[in-house]
């Protein structure tokens, strides 16, 4: 007895293949949608902003006159911010990762730390802003300083750096560690001389990606109250400052149409900044590709 009519199956095959073809096209179109959006986004920002991207734009502070508005304070401010965020978040992140990967045994405390990190990764950035406002700006009285914003951002990207560093450290094969122990090296010597050098490209790549998130984050800065009318450059960690996304936010909200173009120019600077950081990450990734 036959249930499957192969003749009928063959007849229907064509239809099924056409459906397959149609869906393939739909899936492709959906994928291209993302590319299209990115294209439109870049096109608009470049076409609007490029006219304002003059040398003066980099030399001027903000201004109420669109033509005179510049990004100097914000750009330098963002660089200052990174100078706090990078060391703080990398030291904390890598330290935590080393602890979890090399020292932590499977006990309750360490499980709690692990679980806590994965939860922290999901906390919205605006909530980190509230933390920064309450603890750094107010309780520790750091004000709207580079340091307060830097600490806030560091905590924000900490989980990303930890997870990235953990992966990089885990990727160092056990046998080179054993080789080092076998030579009589202590644990810390092994970590410093063997594990970290091998893991560092991975750590740096992850860290740069995390830092580029910190460069673009706006909400925490708004919440901790970073000002925008700033006509000076910070000269120490307790200086007030402004940052790229804050400046862009301010411009974007202004009603005069010309400020939209200024805003686009600001976005371009921000995107170029990010692009440079990511290129460095990719460069490091390719240059120090794992050798074992």
């Amino acid at each position, binding site marked *: 007895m036959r249930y499957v009519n192969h003749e009928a199956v063959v007849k229907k095959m064509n239809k099924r293949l056409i459906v397959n073809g149609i869906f393939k096209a739909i899936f492709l179109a959906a994928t291209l949608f993302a590319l299209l959006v990115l294209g439109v986004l870049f096109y608009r920002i470049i076409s609007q902003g490029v006219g304002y991207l003059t040398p003066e734009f980099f030399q001027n*502070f*903000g201004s*109420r006159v669109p033509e005179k508005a510049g990004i100097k304070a914000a750009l330098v401010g963002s660089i200052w911010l990174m100078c706090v965020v990078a060391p703080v978040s990398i030291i904390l992140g890598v330290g935590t990762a080393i602890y979890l990967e090399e020292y932590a045994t499977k006990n309750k405390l360490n499980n709690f730390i692990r679980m806590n990190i994965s939860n922290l990764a999901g906390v919205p950035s605006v909530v980190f802003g509230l933390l920064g406002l309450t603890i750094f700006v107010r309780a520790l009285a750091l*004000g709207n300083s580079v340091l307060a914003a830097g600490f806030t951002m560091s905590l924000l990207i900490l989980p990303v750096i930890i997870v990235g560093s953990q992966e990089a450290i885990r990727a160092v094969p056990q046998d080179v560690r054993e080789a080092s122990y076998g030579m009589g090296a202590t644990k810390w010597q092994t970590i410093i001389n063997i594990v970290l050098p091998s893991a560092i490209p991975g750590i740096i790549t992850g860290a740069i990606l995390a830092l580029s998130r910190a460069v673009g984050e706006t909400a925490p800065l708004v919440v901790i109250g970073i000002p925008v009318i*700033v006509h*000076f450059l910070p000269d120490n960690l307790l200086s007030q400052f402004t940052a790229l996304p804050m400046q862009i936010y301010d411009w974007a*909200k202004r*009603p005069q149409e010309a400020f939209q173009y200024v805003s686009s120019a600001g976005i371009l600077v921000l995107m170029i900044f990010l692009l440079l950081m990511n290129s460095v990450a990719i460069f490091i990734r390719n240059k120090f590709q794992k050798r074992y």
Partner: protein
Amino acid sequence: ACGDDSTADEVENETGTEEAAATGDTQDEATLEGQVSGDGSSTVAPIMEALVEEYAAVQEKVKVTVGVSGTGGGFEKFIAGTTDFSNASRPIKDEEKAELEAAGIDYTEFKLANDGLTVVVSKDNDWVEDVTVEDLKKMWIEDGTTKKWSDINAEWPDEEIIFYSPGTDSGTYDYFDEVILDEADLVKAATLSEDDNVLVQGVQADKNAIGFFGYAYYLANQDTLKAVKIEGVEPNNETIESGEYSPLSRPLFTYVSNKALAENAALYDFMEYSLENAGDMAEAVGYVRLPDTEYEKGLSTLEALK
């Protein structure tokens, strides 16, 4: 906006020469250093922004930051002692005075300019030209109903009114609330924002919208916004300075800590610069300057606090 631009250019030239003069003869002034921080009214902010911008060219090493938290928000910080001066679009309230006293902060009030609080609609709105204070009350006081233009004037369209108002922390809000609404509640449907730019954007995009904010913001966006006459009087320099545009014209202030003035040479210098230039800046950004005597009075008060 064109005329406005040319004034801005003028100011720029003037300060340009001043700057040259300053660096030319008085060395000590040019080498001033220090930090000055203020906060407060968003209505005053354009004047402040202009002052800060120009002042930065004169005294490169003095760091002036001016936050824009609204008059009330500014006073909070001023009371907390985190700022040296606080901008306000209304006179200081008694509660605020009391709190300042409690905090041991002596202060001095300076007038910077005059502002006409302007009621605006979109350029696309072709029905509203002139309203009465009564009309404004009808529109803006919360009474539990959904307001339509036709409720105010039967000839106006049967469309819902969309409201835009400065946030409650702002002096502009307080002022409007006091003189128009008699401290009743503002319609709940209103979009409130501390950021006047948001209001401008909201109103200009919707022909059923109405909003109010400082005269300067109106001037800067004349091409997309239409100022509504109040009881037949249009807001402009003359009507505001003369007080004819009533009840919606008002002075703008800054409040400075006396102690900080005495201790912080940079603050003193900035305030001196501000009073010297406030009139020009006010005009440049669309407000109305005070009579010169007011500024001179201010400067002599300041001198006494050095």
